Structure formats: C-alpha cells, structure tokens
C-alpha cells in the first residue's frame, strides 16, 4: 500500500495492466517519448516499447477509429485523447461506430477499449482545455462513462474499464491529478462499473456528485457539520450506467437532494438524476431537488475572475446545501 496522487494511481495501473496483458496498447498524442502532456504515461514507452506505447499522429478520429479496428482484431487498446475538449473530431467514431458495433452486428462484434481523457477546469485552460464533456457520451447506449474521484477508485475503475468488453470513456479531472492523494493497494483490484459509493452518511441533505466535485462536497460537509447540518454524499463514480438504486436510497433517506457537477447545467447528468428521483421517489422528498452546476455559457473563460465565476467551488456547494437544509 502506497500513498499516491490521482495521476500516479492512473499511471501505475496502466503499468500493471500492460504487464499483465500483452494485448493492451496505449496510444495517443505525445503519450510515448514525452509521457503525455500531464506525464500520466511517463516511463511506459521505455518499459513496453514503441509498439505498445505509441505516439500517434495528431488526429483524434484516427486514434479512436484505429482503436476500434485493433480491438476487433484482438488487442485491448487504451487510447488517450489529450484533452477531452479535443474529443469532438472523434465523436462519430465513438458514438456511431464504437457504441453501435455490438448492436448493429447483433452481438457478433464488440469493441473492448478504454478512452482516457483529462477534463475539467480551474487550471487556466480556457474554452478548449477545460470542458466537461461527459453528458454527451452518457446519452449514448452502448457506451460506459466512468469518472473516478479518488486515487483508489482511479485504479479500480481503470482496471475494470480495461477488462470490460465494451467501450468505456474514462474521464480524469485535471485539477485532481496532483491535488488528490490517497492510499492505493499494490495488488490489482476491480471496482464494478455502475456502482456508486456512499462517501459519507448523513441525515439532512444528500449531495449526489462525481469526480473532483466529490472532494469539494466533502469539504462542504465538514463546514456544515459544525453548523449541525448532517450531509450525506453519494459519489456516482459511473454516470452511465447510473446506480439508480443508490440514488433513490439516499434521496429517500434524507428527502433533500443537491445534485452537483461542473458540467453545464442544462442537459447535464443532474437532470437525469433529478428525473429518476422525481419518477421513483417523489413522495419521499421534503424539498425540491436542487442542481448546482456550471452555468449555461459555452465554455470556461480564461481570465481568472471569469474562470472563478464559472467554477463550482466548495463554498458554492456549502451555500447551496445550507440553503436546502433550511428549506
């Protein structure tokens, strides 16, 4: 057991998986010699060679499209999209090809691959290096979307994603890479995709969230605890599939739900979670469901005051949860 950053947990999992299974290849822009622009894949090419850790041409559709072909022909590709904002040139390959190949072939073909992509803001990345893109993919049957919130989960979910027989998008928050640290067991372990994690039990308000926002929600809960407000926190970990049972359970328990994500408000996962609660747990609620999310502006601006105004922060979460508790 070692204490690792979120980034180190991802790197060491990739290393462990590459050692475990010769069919796994890692590739994308700058992932080889440079070890990735965030150094997630640092040292992997030196250990596994240029044939398994590949610097690919700068073309996202080709990265994902070749991964599809490689997966069909027996490899387990783990392509990286350098920033999630750059995933859109590949969206046809992901949504119309990878996600549909099993269905359209009536189960004959499958695409076991993991698309890793750093996402999220607060790092001066501006409009095209800060986006949260998960909701686009969570809409698509055939895809799975996971977003780990801790180094421990980063390892277990990545191993599960690589073992999965279907395409999995694995989003890593950039601000989590070096800010989040935690104990990570040396041995391989799997965290099932589609199982939420109750991070903290509480009585008065449920915060349902995922990714970096889990750590922010935990900070908010500490503050509110001193005020006598007991906050329950559910980390979704996977936004497709959603853990409906866990969502309804916490909603029924506290009767007050605050949904938090950095992604834009409209069409975000918060809407889907709210709908599930409204459909299946309405009469357990003591207050309207509240969504705290990135505002409906096209993307995150660069200049610090604008960027800060966009971000969901522990303070904003504290305020929203406090208000909901008092409803």
């Amino acid at each position, binding site marked *: 057991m070692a204490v690792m950053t979120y980034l180190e947990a991802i790197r060491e999992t990739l290393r462990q998986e590459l050692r475990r299974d010769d069919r796994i290849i890692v590739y994308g822009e700058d992932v080889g010699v440079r070890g990735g622009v965030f150094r997630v894949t640092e040292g992997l090419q030196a250990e596994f060679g240029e044939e398994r850790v590949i610097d*690919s*041409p700068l073309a996202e559709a*080709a990265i994902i499209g070749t991964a599809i*072909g*490689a997966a069909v022909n027996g490899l387990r590709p783990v392509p990286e999209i350098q920033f999630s904002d750059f995933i859109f040139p590949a969206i046809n390959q992901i949504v*119309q090809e990878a996600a549909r190949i099993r269905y*359209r072939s*009536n*189960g004959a073909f499958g695409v076991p691959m993991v698309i890793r992509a750093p996402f999220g803001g607060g790092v001066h990345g501006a409009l095209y290096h800060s986006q949260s893109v998960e909701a686009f993919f969570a809409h698509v049957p055939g895809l799975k979307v996971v977003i780990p919130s801790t180094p421990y989960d980063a390892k277990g979910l990545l191993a599960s994603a690589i073992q999965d027989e279907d395409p999995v998008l694995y989003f890593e928050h950039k601000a989590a890479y070096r800010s989040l640290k935690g104990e990570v067991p040396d041995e391989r372990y799997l965290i099932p995709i589609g199982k939420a994690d109750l991070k903290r039990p509480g009585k008065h308000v449920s915060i349902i969230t995922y990714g970096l926002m889990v750590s922010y929600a935990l900070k908010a809960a500490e503050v509110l605890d001193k005020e006598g407000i007991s906050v329950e926190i559910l980390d979704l970990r996977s936004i497709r599939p959603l853990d409906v049972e866990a969502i309804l359970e916490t909603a029924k328990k506290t009767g007050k739900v605050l949904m938090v994500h950095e992604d834009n408000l409209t069409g975000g996962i918060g809407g889907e979670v709210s709908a599930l609660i409204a459909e299946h747990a309405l009469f357990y609620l003591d207050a309207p469901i509240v969504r705290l999310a990135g505002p409906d502006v096209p993307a995150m601006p660069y200049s610090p005051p604008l960027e800060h105004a966009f971000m969901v922060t522990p303070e904003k979460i504290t305020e929203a949860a406090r208000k909901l508790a008092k409803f």
Partner: protein
Amino acid sequence: MSKNSITPELQKDMYYHMALARALDDRMWILNRQGRAPVVYSSNGHEAAQVGSAFALNRGEDWIVPYYRDLALVLAYGMTPRQVMLHLLGKAEDPNSGGRQMPAHWGLKERHILTTGSVVATQDIHAAGLALASKVLKDGRVSVAYFGEGSTSQGEFHEALNFAAVHKLPVIFFNENNGYAISVPARKQMAVMDIAARAEGYGMPGVIVDGNDPLKVYEVTKEARERALAGEGPTLIEAKTYRFVPHSSDDDDRAYRSREEVAEWKKRDPLVTFEKHVLDNKILSQEEHQAMQQKIKDLVNDATDYAEQAALPDPDTLGLYVYHQ
C-alpha cells in the same frame, strides 16, 4: 485481358462469383420493384473490381471492411446468397445484423468481414486499426478498406492513409471509382484527376487499375498484399469502373447522367467481357457455362424463397446486445 499467371480454375471461380453477384443483384431489384424489398444498393458494374481484389486476398483470414456497393465482394469472400437475401429482407437469421441494419451494411465475423455503418470513410480507419493489431500480434493478416471516390473527400480517409503510412501498417486502401457520388461527379468532388495521386502525399504507392478487368485488379491487389506482408506498408489502389444502375433503388440516375454515357460504359461491362474471355480461351466450356448459369439461377431462387419464408426478428429482442451479455 491482361496476360497473367492466374490459373484457369481461379478464373472460372472469379467468373462464377461475378455472375452470381449480378444475378442476385438483378433479383433484388425485381423484389424491390415488386414491393417485396424496401431498398437495394447494387454492385452492378463493379463486379470485376470487387471479385478480382477479393481473390488476391487470403479470403476469410485477411480482414475486409466493405462499403454498401460491395455485394460481389462479400459473395467472393464467402457470404452465401441466402445470407444476402436474409439481410435484404431484414430477417432474424440475417448474420450481418439480425435485421437491424439497412441492406448492404455488410458484416460477417466468421469470414472476417467487419461490420459497417453508413457514414462514409469511417471504415478506412477501422482497416488501419485492424492492421495495427496485425502488426502488433504478427498474425500475418492484411486488412483492406473498400470505398467509393466520393468518400475520399472525408477527413477520415486522409487520417487513415496518414496513420497507416506512418506506422507502415499491412493495409490496402481499395477505391472503387465509378465517377459519381450519387449525383455528384468526381470533378466536383476533387480537383485532381485520380484518387491514386493522393497516395504520394502520404508516402505510399498509388496504383491505377482498370476496374473492369478482374485479372488486372487481381494482380495489383496481390502485389499490394505482398508489400503489406513484407512490412513495406499500405498501398492505395484506384480501380476505375462504373455503376450501371442508379445509386440505389430510390435514385433515378437520368437526372444526372446521359444515357449515351451509360451506353458507352456498357460496352465494357465486366461481366460480358470476362465471360467472353473465359469462353474464348476455353477456360469455361459451353456446357460448363450452361451448368453454371443453372446453378446460379437455382441458388438465387433458393435464397429468395428461403429468405422470404424466414422469420422476422422478435420485437422482444430490441434491447439485446447494447452491451456484452
């Protein structure tokens, strides 16, 4: 016809598959016009390019990634007439998709025909990816993407060629250039005369071949395959050909092609010219030819009857195979 070392037996088999494709295709149009098949996409006119190239491959082992024009190709690659008809009529037993995809969206795993979607040029990248795996796994397979000239306007065509050339992948990009993308002629699609000219920009050989001559197509494909297996990387082949029918059964090509132009190309109908070749050169006797024609007729009838009587998919299966199960 080119001088060649292709055995008479092989030529006979090529001719058989070309004739089978044409006959099956003709039947599909009849079914469409009778209201028994919703839509047809044809290989009519492309048979030499498709069958000639397929025979140069290790059929069933090398991967092919076809497009909707490739009926003759998939037949040459081992799909049966029954399987084609089941697909046309959207029957449960359709091995391409179980009735989920429109006709001509081929895919047959046991013959290494990769499933295909409708957005053109996506398959070019998949072929490169299949070849990437072959390179890593050293499985001795070559992959071939088939595509029309219109699709070469797509970015993914260019991305695929570039990726494959950089990594010297064992892949062949096989273009069937029939001069039209539905109604848009090639001169409005690109400012170069030949698709093959694009190859130079990616650092690979570009080869132009008479797509109505199966033997010439066979030879250039064979050569490209040998290059791929020798680790010398991809080849772009441009087979110049023509489709004798509209884009689909819902199209009317009189809106954009003169009858004179079609008639001119018809003089070089690959089925007619290759038939003449195999008969004139005694590769196929008259008796064998007649027997073959009867066999094809019987197969087409059998496929039609079988598929028409086959069960439609159960609506309860709608939710199957979204994920691995």
